[in-house]
């Protein structure tokens, strides 16, 4: 049994990013441009190669643009700008 309570601060800061809405997905991949941002982890470049081939061959993707990061760093703004201007969808690698 506890005779009294005390007040304490919760030390965990809240998530405070603005609410966001994800875009509706593509109607189909036919004729679309897909970008890959390779996070430079071992083997991811091979997965990108194979997925690019399959998406082009079987799903009608018109073009694939690939960027391989030099390491675990954010994508450079100019690369991001290129992806935004040229791609309909972008696939990124995360973690190992």
């Amino acid at each position, binding site marked *: 049994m506890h005779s009294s309570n*005390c007040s304490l601060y919760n030390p965990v800061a809240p998530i405070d990013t603005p609410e966001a809405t*994800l875009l509706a*997905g*593509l109607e189909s*991949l036919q004729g679309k441009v897909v970008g890959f941002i390779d996070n430079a982890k071992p083997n991811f470049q091979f997965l990108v190669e194979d997925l690019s081939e399959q998406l082009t061959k079987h799903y009608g993707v018109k073009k694939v643009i690939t960027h391989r990061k030099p390491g675990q760093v954010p994508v450079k703004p100019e690369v991001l700008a290129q992806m935004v201007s040229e791609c309909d969808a972008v696939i990124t690698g995360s*973690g190992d």
Partner: protein
Amino acid sequence: MSKEGKVGLTICSTAFEGLGRAQAKALGFAELPIAVIPHPFGIRSRDEIHQLAAQCVTEVAKLLCQTGKTVSTLRQPTSVGAALLEAPDTLEEINRLFMNNRWSDGLPIIPPTPERVDAMLQGTDRHRHDIISKVAPAFRAATVEYIAINAVMAGCYPEYLPVLIAATEAVSTPHFNLNGIQATTNPAAVWLIVNGPIADTLKINSQGNCLGPGHWANATLGRALRLILQNIGGGLPGDMDKATHGQPGKYTFCCAENEAASPWEALHVERGFQKNDSTVTVVGPLGTWNMNTHAKDANDLIRVIGDTMAFPASSDYVHGGAPWLILSPEHAHLFNREGLSKQNVKERLWEASKLKTSRLAAKDLGRVQNGRREELGILSPDTLLPITVKPEDINILVAGGDGTHSVYLPVSGNSYSASVKIKEFISTTI
């Protein structure tokens, strides 16, 4: 990509799905599509990758074409301030509450009562709701109040608060790459180095056992920064902190430079600050490696330190890193007696630590080739890899007590240390 108005999809292995979903949620995209592939991924053969791609392409295509949903993540404006909760008023029950909620680092805490937090805030003139930085990987706002709450928990005194405010600013410097440090499988800690008059005022140890136990300021400042990284930054072990082993330095890792015993200019002076400025420097070391050598001349000492730095599983060679050395005063004076400046030592070590590419694992060599192509061009088996892009990226601190020991600290990939002036400390000792 979703922020830029494009359909986005992330691919990660099963071991990293939790990290991916947590970070997407933290950034406001809780429902970001994620295609998950089996872990471990990096060690698979080329044929296995081919089969994996064939298996997951359907899922990738489906996720790219699925309907997006409105995110309904709970939001709380930071201006409201930290939430209060009621708890049984015993130390044991409070610590059980903090342990069960994973709000501590695994050690008992000082309860952050409103009275203690208000007292902590007396250590700064900053408003309690001022935002110092957004701390990765969750990128939550580090207000002065949240820094103070975690400082109380760690056992800090109010006069330590300006150090922690500066450190929280420093860790969010882009080139420090805190996101990489917090989420990596490497055992990356954050080491807090204090320079200038505040180190003496707060009794931050720079001498014998400067990285060991026994000094309240070292222990509690380092611990407070860890709690800030966890409770504000979201680097919770096993969740967004994916360290394979971690290291004891993730509990606390703080010292001052032994400026009085150094023959050279202090770290903060080398970086453009005034001698009577007080600064914090944050570093992302992967461990500490003692080098016990009775080398009698500079050539010998350069050779053995360079050899120690040159190990083939080092991240520094993969990325062109920024490793650190803590030279004992005895070793620093040996160099100085032979006329070597700190810059001379860096240049000599840069040459002495070059590593033959043939010593690396083939996959690691591939990573070097990718990460350093612009700098090094095509590599041959006989190429000698420099540990950093340029000698200046080798960092030297003089600290510690008597003894023929210096310490090598390899550093987390793509992370460069950051120094920030402690703005609220005015020296009275000059």
